């Protein structure tokens, strides 16, 4: 456990160790992205507020979990290959690496969540945050990303092209997930199953549900679909990992 926390910190530090501001960039660059996007859509396109919620808040509440998810998936995919030295040249428990990656993404995520909560309380001081919901959806993100880390990380060793493919898939995922755009009632009627089948949508909408006022009931259909997807992913990931991890050193 101590090793896990230490390695997560190291992971963060190393990712940004070449620059002067160091790990600060981990926070600075998404922060600037949020500011730019908000400015463009608020001042430029003059997006109307969503219900009584200002657009900036509505967007940020979805963008913060999205950042965590995309960072977690991209990082999880490379978790074994980037630590190839540890696996090939030392005796090292490879199973901690997806967790290390997840934890280092989580540290950044915590920082954003904190800012998000502050902004949210400043803009909507009257309605309470649904902390139970937040805890539930954080757990859901964790399990979703953990499964993805084991699955994609193991596959990456045998398919080096995977990390590039994942990069493109994340782009796609960003646009088919209502992070920047809003679902209309008509869309839900027409392609409701497709929307419900996207586990990332479930998480992004879940975060909005926890933080913003509105209906607080979990949608049954997408909850079931999300957990069956996440469960299968975890099973497949741990199966592949346990099947192939003894030969990791031979493959890298």
């Amino acid at each position, binding site marked *: 456990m101590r090793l896990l926390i*230490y390695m997560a910190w190291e992971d963060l530090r190393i990712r940004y160790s070449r620059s002067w501001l160091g790990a600060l960039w981990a926070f600075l660059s998404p922060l600037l992205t949020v500011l730019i996007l908000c400015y463009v859509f608020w001042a430029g396109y003059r997006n109307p507020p969503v219900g009584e919620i200002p657009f900036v808040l509505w967007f940020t509440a979805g963008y913060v979990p999205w950042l965590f998810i995309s960072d977690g998936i991209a990082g999880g995919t490379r978790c074994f290959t980037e630590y190839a030295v*540890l696996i090939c*040249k030392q005796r090292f428990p490879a199973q901690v690496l997806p967790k290390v990656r997840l934890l280092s993404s989580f540290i950044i995520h915590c920082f954003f969540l904190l800012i998000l909560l502050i902004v949210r309380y400043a803009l909507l001081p009257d309605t309470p945050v649904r902390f139970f919901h937040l805890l539930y959806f954080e757990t859901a993100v964790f399990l979703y990303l953990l499964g993805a880390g084991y699955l994609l990380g193991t596959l990456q060793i045998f398919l080096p092209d995977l990390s590039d493919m994942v990069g493109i898939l994340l782009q796609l995922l960003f646009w088919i997930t209502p992070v920047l755009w809003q679902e209309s009632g008509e869309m839900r009627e027409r392609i409701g199953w497709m929307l419900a089948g996207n586990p990332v949508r479930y998480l992004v909408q879940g975060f909005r549900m926890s933080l913003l006022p509105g209906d607080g009931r979990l949608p049954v259909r997408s909850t079931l679909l999300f957990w069956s997807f996440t469960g299968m992913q975890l099973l497949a990931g741990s199966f592949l990992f346990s099947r192939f991890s003894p030969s990791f050193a031979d493959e890298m």
Partner: protein
Amino acid sequence: MDNRIEVQGLTKTYHLYRKKSHRIRGLLLREEYLAREFEALRGISFTVAEGECVGIIGLNGSGKSTLLKILSGVTSPTEGSVRIRGEVEALLELGAGFRPEDTGIKNVERQLMLRGLQKEERRRRMSGILAFAEIGDFAFQPVRTYSTGMFVRLAFAAALSIEPEILLIDEALSVGDVFFQEKCFRRIRALSGKATVLMVSHDLASISRFCSRTLLLNGGVLVYDGDTKDAIAEYYRIRQGTMPCTERKNKVEMPVWDEPMRIPEAGSLSGAGQIRITAYSWQVNGAAFREEVMQDDRIRVTLSVQTEEPTDCLITGFQVLDKRGMEVFGETNLTSGNGRFSTQLRKGESLISFCFSWPELREGDYFMTLGIGTGPEVLCQIEQCWVNQAVHFVNSTSGRLIYGLFNRKMEEFQIISMEADKNE
């Protein structure tokens, strides 16, 4: 004493694919026929007791490193079992996991952290490591600014600071400067009393220095397990390719030569075998088969040689090795004669003899290997027939102290006082 390492029937098979796509097909569809199997290790079994120091030698690709990788738990065997009792530290690659951007301290800290040491323990180890590495303030600089020597020092210090019960070393000792190497040797020797050490090396001298027992691997098979000196002799024989041996009638007396000659032991021969050394003899200051030698003694070697094909470019040479298998000196007719000596060999039986004087050397046991080859140059010759460790010599120095392998006399010496004379 208890066995620390027990290896039973260890086999490691790698699958080699000609194309990348074949590997994916092999993985997904289990089309095993696309793979070419390569057995890096085949049915290896041995045990190592507590406190033993065992060397592992073999030609390139004989499976030494694979064996260490399996023992260290980095990779798993295809078949067979490995039982290890105790904490293992493996030095598979010096400074693996060091990040060039980080300072020396930070890197060492990480190594210690990865081994799960507590804070107090880490602090204690850290000061010991820095003292051992002797790199001064460079410890606070990024590792990428280090010289190779400094890097090696720090990496080694970090690895040796962990006091494991089982230490596995792969080829790590052959780097670094001599003084630091010596220091590492001492450290390992201190360790080897308590710890079980397994070392892979091409440096046979250091193997024979540490290990009384040595495993010799050839093509993934354990071909010898026992006394280091014999393992090294066996290693040389494998390196030169074993010669097809024909049974010869044991004739000690040669017709044209009135001295008795020795028939080489079948096992000591190696080489291509078109020209064969059928018998040999030697004299020290005229005394046949004497083994005691001293500086400036005159040594004459006679070889009886048999060939079916005449040659114009015969190379005859000898090499003297110390008991650790280290090559000390040697010479060939080609290089010492500058073309003065004839290199023609006629068909049939011939006698070759040469003479040299014994140099100043540290006392001890030495072995002479005799060899015949053909070719225009020593470095591109075909080794025809080598008699490995044909002659045993015991060198004595009659009480004179040799400070190294040999001495070199001072040629000038004076003392000049730099103090001003008080009377002037």
